[in-house]
């Protein structure tokens, strides 16, 4: 089954709906790409949430600290000028709602899926690597001059967890998928 068109449509609709409903913002969809699971460098705020069932995988959001603060401010109607616990919590909940909505859409095609509790990381020059061989579907969204990247990988069960590395390359923790 070619999941990519279904995932792109679902990610696009879910992200637009969550931004519109919870933030009062119409977000513009940008380019759609694919990525393999090779190690990549990250700066800013990155969230992960696991999906499990007959198919399993990971959903992820990433954005700059500026956009994370802007998301928090719009969602909670508060001032957010630095990435703190409240900002990370807002990004975690955004991840939960977007990927949770995609999960519901995908259950019609893949059967029941479980959703983990999201994890959010904020830092500079950290690396993430998917230990599986699955392809990620990546959709970018633009809010004024900032970009939010929403991506997901899903594959038949039995794959390995997503591993995050410190700049030095030593494994920091494994996120169960």
């Amino acid at each position, binding site marked *: 089954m070619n999941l990519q068109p279904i995932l792109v449509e679902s990610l696009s609709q879910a992200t637009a709906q969550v931004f519109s409903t919870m933030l009062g913002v119409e977000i513009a969809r940008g380019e759609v790409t694919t990525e393999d699971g090779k190690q990549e460098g990250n700066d800013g705020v990155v969230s992960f949430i696991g999906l499990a069932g007959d198919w399993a995988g990971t959903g992820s959001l990433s954005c700059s600290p500026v956009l994370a603060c802007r998301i928090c401010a719009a969602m909670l109607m508060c001032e957010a000028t630095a990435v703190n616990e409240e900002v990370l919590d807002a990004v975690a*909940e955004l991840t939960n709602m977007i990927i949770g909505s995609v999960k519901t859409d995908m259950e019609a095609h893949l059967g029941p899926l479980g*959703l983990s509790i999201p994890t959010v990381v904020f830092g500079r020059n950290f690396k993430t690597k998917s230990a599986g061989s699955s392809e990620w579907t990546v959709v970018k969204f633009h809010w004024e001059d900032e970009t939010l990247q929403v991506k997901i990988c899903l594959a038949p069960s039995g794959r390995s967890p997503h591993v995050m590395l410190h700049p030095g390359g030593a494994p920091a923790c494994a996120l169960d998928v």
Partner: protein
Amino acid sequence: MESDVLVVDDSAAIRKILQRVLRQTGMAIRTIHEAGDGQEALAVMNAHKVDLVLTDINMPKMDGLQFLASVKASAQWRQVPVVMITTEGGETKVGEAVKLGAAGYVRKPFTADQIKEKLAGLLESAVPL
């Protein structure tokens, strides 16, 4: 009569949003208690009068379904309406919640109107303890 509401969600962001939405509904609400998981929620219910509960499903320690089962198994609390507020749109968990006695559910993302519509009748029919 003013009601006391308990909001249960591991996300402080959602608890804050629900606090705001509940205040905006114009319903007669006296106190809004908060809890971050089912265990905390049971502790709050032991310590305070609660007329209505809004709870997430996916939470650490004790999830919303386990919490709902505990409420409905209690002679003291079984009349308290519990509304699930969740990203879960699938039949499985929502169906389980309804079987356990949930008064209804609202899917995230939600609008203030959806929350108000869901709660209006429930708060009117809530039986103060």
